């Protein structure tokens, strides 16, 4: 039976050949960016070792580049950048609030356990 109570939002997402060309160009640009970032990460990872005094900078650089890659994947490949603002926030804001809290609590606790083991024996 044909249902008339369902509006097909997907029908709005069709686009023409010209728009498609633009989108495809964007996809290839993002591909190049992601590949270059991964290449840079591996090159730095192979050169700078963890006993290097500048390791802290490199570590934060890696985390920054990772978030950059994640941003490109979510916003371009998953089209979240093209969705309505409200959907974007419904997805991202609760996630980040919870995850940042969890990172804080778990790493603080991890360091505390470590110092307990080293100071009082394991």
């Amino acid at each position, binding site marked *: 039976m044909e249902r008339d109570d369902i509006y097909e939002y997907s029908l709005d997402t069709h686009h023409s050949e010209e728009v498609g060309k633009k989108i495809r160009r964007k996809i290839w640009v993002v591909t190049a960016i992601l590949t270059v970032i991964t290449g840079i990460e591996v090159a730095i990872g*192979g050169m700078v070792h963890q006993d290097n005094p500048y390791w802290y900078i490199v570590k934060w650089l890696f985390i920054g580049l990772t978030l950059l890659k994640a941003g490109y994947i979510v916003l371009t490949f998953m089209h979240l950048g093209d969705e309505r603002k409200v959907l974007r926030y419904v997805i991202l804001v609760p996630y980040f609030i919870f995850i940042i809290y969890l990172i804080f609590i778990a790493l603080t606790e991890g360091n505390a356990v470590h110092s307990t083991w080293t100071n009082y024996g394991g």
Partner: protein
Amino acid sequence: MAGHSTTHVDAGSAWGGKVSPFNVSYGKMMMWFFLVSDALTFGGLLISYGFVRHTTEGAWPIGEETFEALPFLGHGYPLAYVALMTFILIVSSVTMVLAVEAGHRMDKKGVVKWMLATIIGGFFFVGSQAWEWSHFMHGTDWGSVELADGSRAIVKGHFGEFESFTVVEAGKHHKKGEVIKESSDELYHHFREAVLAGHVKDGKMMLHDGSIVTWKRQADHEVKLIVKTDGNGVALKKRTVIEGKDAEKKYWEAVNSGEKGRLVYGANLLSLSEPNEYGPTQYAQLFFFITGFHGFHVFSGVVINILIFLGVVKGTYHKRGHYEMVEKTGLYWHFVDLVWVFVFTFFYLV
């Protein structure tokens, strides 16, 4: 009460199915909500990895030291293999987004082509992960070694290949004076078995048929011992590195001690109390759990992609007038790529 009755929800009002506050279809929104919950699961797993790592600090294995092998080429290529895996997954994500784009133009041929490429990429990734796992479990030729003072070191360098064994005491299958010539891999296999059983002592080892042999092998090169834990298994504040002849001497002294457990090869989940080659046991547990959970996602993603692919080939979505199913499975596939980006950083890079 009249005021209330006019605000009841029916098919004609907002949320009745005709207007969505997010302007997306129900299916797509639910896929997003599922992905948020799945992302929380992976976030929780990676954060637990961070927790355990912070409790052990210096003893924790380092990505570029642990993963430095390539198929057919051996060791000495830090992160090259995992970079290749990452690249494969990124490319398969790109082909997926191209399939979605083709779907928006109702270009069935394009969707078929790009989805097929995505499925092939997915198989490649799962296959390379299988190789990585088997290599991780098998370990290096060296293993990690417990030195005379009880501290434990991982070993780097080129392991000299075995050439032959010479029998000095006869066993079930070999006579005295016999020279056993097999491939260096097979000879190495006998050697590792003898080491694990504690059957190597003072340059002689007992094979499993009871014969005792000496061995002839090429020289080791650039041997390096990296000591991370002291005699009590506690992580050192700063790792010490032993190099050259001294390193060779200390390594072979442990091999020739005839004691079980001085050498550990690869990773396993058999015992919680024993270390694996790379460092604390939790490292292998988290590695298997997180990359395994991710690999399971990749595998199920490939299966879902194949199902949708069949629908595309049959023309189901073309008849429907839109390729939203491709878009939804695409969201899942990109998510798998997204998770790998984080696994790559926290397991291999930092």
